[in-house]
């Protein structure tokens, strides 16, 4: 598959801080690629280097082999949405687009067309200072679409949008892809993008964690399972688990999760030891869990870096290893009192 964007050993050093560290990935033409990672993982810096706004320390970032500055009339090839704040507050929406269109040699007739496309025709003569965040995002999208580019780069476009706005954005992105455009869209929430993207590039602390398809990530999510048990006899049960070297996570005083366990394994064990349970839940991992586990596991595996696993509200990987590969199901419960 031909690539639309190539990031090759890209590195950015900001006054001693390594924001992007030897990052390499490709964005396939004609697909929607989600660029995912926690806040501060170097996504925005990567996109800004790609667009020639931030100087590259090492490596390269190109569109079909060409740097952004080497592209003639670049916004007719690459449309970018970076942040919803870069407008002059007293300029009217229409004038903002006109100024960009004229500067890029795009017919002014496109202004009305793109305003219509993002649903801002009614407020075309309003000053941008009076716009809501959602309206600014739409105006940014209109700016990006002015030149009818074949590549779209969207940096956290869902930020500040209400649920309806996010739904609109998803439809919008899918529509862009259906007309053959390549889209690279960043987000710190996979859930925001999981109905939208074809491929995912996951980064953490400026480094690549994983590049794969959404389908593959979903498969991983489906196989990440565990059993959650709430019991008044939790201390006796965990004692048995510890004696048998079976890992578990305590998520409440009376509740634990055994990652990788199955109902078929757990049922007989509980019956054998006659443990009273109030609640047993077969947990299936969501895409968000996989994403969080991947990034957390990755951070923890870095020397001296990262949060402690399992520190977040969702719980985390029980081990330092990337958790997408589920731990092997616990073996048969050995011995025990009969």
């Amino acid at each position, binding site marked *: 598959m031909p690539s639309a964007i190539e990031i090759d050993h890209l590195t950015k050093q*900001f006054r001693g801080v390594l924001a992007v560290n030897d990052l390499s990935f490709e964005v396939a033409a004609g697909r929607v690629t989600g660029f995912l990672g926690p806040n501060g993982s170097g996504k*925005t*810096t990567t996109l*800004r280097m790609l*667009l*020639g*706004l*931030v*100087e590259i320390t090492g490596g390269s970032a190109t569109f079909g082999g060409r740097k*952004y*500055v080497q592209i003639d009339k*670049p*916004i007719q090839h690459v449309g*970018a949405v*970076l*942040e919803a*704040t*870069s*407008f*002059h*507050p*007293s*300029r*009217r929406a229409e*004038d*903002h687009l*006109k*100024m*960009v269109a*004229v*500067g*890029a*040699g795009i017919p002014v007739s496109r202004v009305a067309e793109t305003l219509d496309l993002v649903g801002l025709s009614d407020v075309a003569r309003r000053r941008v200072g009076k716009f809501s965040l959602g309206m600014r995002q739409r105006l940014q999208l209109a*700016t990006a679409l002015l030149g009818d580019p074949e590549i779209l780069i969207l940096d956290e476009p869902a930020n500040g949008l209400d649920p309806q706005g996010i739904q609109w954005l998803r439809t919008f992105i899918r529509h862009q892809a259906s007309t053959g455009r390549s889209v690279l869209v960043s987000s710190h929430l996979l859930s925001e993008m999981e109905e939208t993207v074809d491929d995912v590039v996951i980064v953490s602390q400026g480094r690549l964690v994983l590049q794969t398809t959404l389908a593959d990530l979903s498969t991983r999510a489906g196989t990440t399972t565990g059993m959650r048990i709430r019991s008044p006899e939790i201390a006796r049960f965990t004692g048995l688990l510890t004696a048998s070297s079976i890992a578990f996570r305590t998520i409440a005083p009376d509740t634990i999760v055994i990652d990788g366990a199955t109902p078929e394994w757990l049922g007989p064990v509980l019956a054998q030891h006659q443990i009273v349970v109030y609640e047993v839940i077969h947990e299936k991992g969501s895409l968000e869990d996989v994403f969080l586990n991947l990034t957390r596991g990755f951070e923890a595996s870095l020397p001296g870096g990262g949060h402690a696993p399992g520190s977040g509200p969702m719980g985390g990987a029980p081990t330092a290893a990337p958790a997408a590969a589920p731990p092997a199901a616990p073996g048969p419960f050995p011995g025990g009192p009969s």
Partner: protein
Amino acid sequence: MINVIRSEWIKLRTTAVPWVLTGIALVINGLLILVIFLRHDQLTGGDSIPHTTQQLNNLVGSGFQGYLLALLLGVLCITTEFRHKTVTTAFLVTPQRPVFVVGKMILAAIAGAVLAVIMLVATMIGGGLTLVARGGSFSAMLHQLPSVAPGMILVFALFAILGVGIGSLLTNQVAAIIVVLGWFILLEGILVSLVTSAEKWVPTGAALAASNLTRGQGGGNNGGEVFHLFNQWQGTLLMLGYGILFAAIGSYFLTRRDIT
């Protein structure tokens, strides 16, 4: 480049800056005309009106000090981009940053020249009406226009170019305004009074030479005084040189600057 300049024109006219500056310029110009007539009355006991070549020159060029507003126009038209972060969009449209600076300089030069023309027209109307109302000759005043207008228009354009140059180097709007006003209102005068030989080298001296008007800096009535200034061409080139020097240094740093 034509596209860049046209885009800059849309940027300029769709903000309040040029209109507010023009308004200020006209108000100040009106006051200066008033001052010229009042002062003339004081000096002559009210029995005469400006009629000598020098007096009429001063009247026609009463808006000359407005070059400071042309300078501010230049400073504002570039620093506004940084203040409101619109520079991100500007660099996406025009990734070659020196082209962006040059586009602004050309547009600012045109806008500065237009500001001079507006002030000259206002002076011819306001000053002319006052003159005629007091029995003076408008045709005599009109006769002085060709000797004042080209120099004034040139100086306004040069100052606007200098403003863009300074703004490209000092992108913080507040800092840039403080620096230019501090220099042109205060420091330059102090420097010249301490080192008289510096007068022809400082921007205002160069601009005065470029204007080819035999006038003092105060806009007053000291024709005939010998100025140790460069000639018109030298003054123009020196002034242009300052603008280009600042813009070149500004562009150098701008090209390496991370827009985050």
